[in-house]
């Protein structure tokens, strides 16, 4: 079990999610638990609650998980996925209001330093224009 906050990347496109995960791994290394998913349950562009739940499971850390999403449905489906998880985990998962690629890299950088979930979220959200 990693001691760092985990990062989950949720995109409508599996290619975007995979590519973002590769960038995170290359820039931050493998010390941050990482999960990603993209595509709807039929394999088209979209997101899947089931796949998001599985990605959270892969990236799970006792310190929590920060999720980065791209467009609307990815956020709604991520929130739904969180609600369907056991209560003991729900309050240790956040959806960051940040651009998916830059947010994932920044969040993972922060997480790699051993930061708390809240600090990871803040760092990712600093990228969001107010």
């Amino acid at each position, binding site marked *: 079990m990693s001691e760092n906050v985990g990062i989950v990347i949720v995109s409508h496109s599996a290619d975007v999610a995979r590519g973002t995960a590769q960038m995170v791994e290359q820039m931050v290394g493998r010390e941050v638990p990482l999960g990603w998913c993209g595509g*709807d*349950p*039929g394999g*088209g*562009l*979209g*997101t*899947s*609650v*089931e796949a998001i739940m599985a990605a959270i499971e892969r990236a799970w850390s006792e310190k929590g998980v920060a999720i980065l999403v791209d*467009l*609307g*449905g990815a956020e*709604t*489906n991520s*929130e*739904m996925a969180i609600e*369907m998880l056991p209560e003991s985990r729900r309050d240790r998962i956040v959806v960051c209001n940040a651009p998916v690629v830059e947010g994932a890299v920044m969040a993972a950088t922060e997480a790699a330093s051993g930061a708390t979930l809240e600090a990871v979220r803040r760092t990712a959200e600093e990228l969001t224009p107010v």
Partner: protein
Amino acid sequence: MMIDREARKLLFETVARRVIESAEELTDLDRAIGDGDHGANMRRGFEAVLASVDELSAKNLGESLKGVGTTLVMKVGGASGPLYGTLFMSLGKSLADDVTQEQIAEAFAAAIEAVKARGKSDVGQKTMLDVLFPVLGVLRESGAGLPLRLKATAREAAERTVPMRAIRGRASFLGDRSIGHMDPGARSSELIVDAVADVMEGFA
């Protein structure tokens, strides 16, 4: 009224078929102001409901509605999965097999609140809520001809989304250009209400 296993099965089948039949129309509406996936997403979700309709309707009304909701959440894909999933799951929380119209209205009101929270949206923003909310108004009225009033209200409410400007969802990216198109979520909600009303009337 008593909503037994047969009635539940007929209800779910009728709603699912209506949505599946209209998938192309929903996709066309969504192509105009969204990302063009609403029809395909809803078809996938309701095909999954159809595929397990016997199993779903074998449970009591509350559990079977929750089952339909969970199926939609898992299979639809777009934002409409969690939104319709939440609607059905919330309805399932309080309804027993033997229900009064008042109880249905109460459950529907709670379900609308749950959908609002899930979508961080409200009435008047060119969404499914613009159909569901007027339908709640009809459910709260007593009197004869409920199915016909439900159908007419749902249709008019969906039409009223045409001149609205989208504030939530992908259509909001278009701003004023979302004006002049019916909201796809409003239309799919109308289809579902219409199908339920048909079952109530014995037309399905």
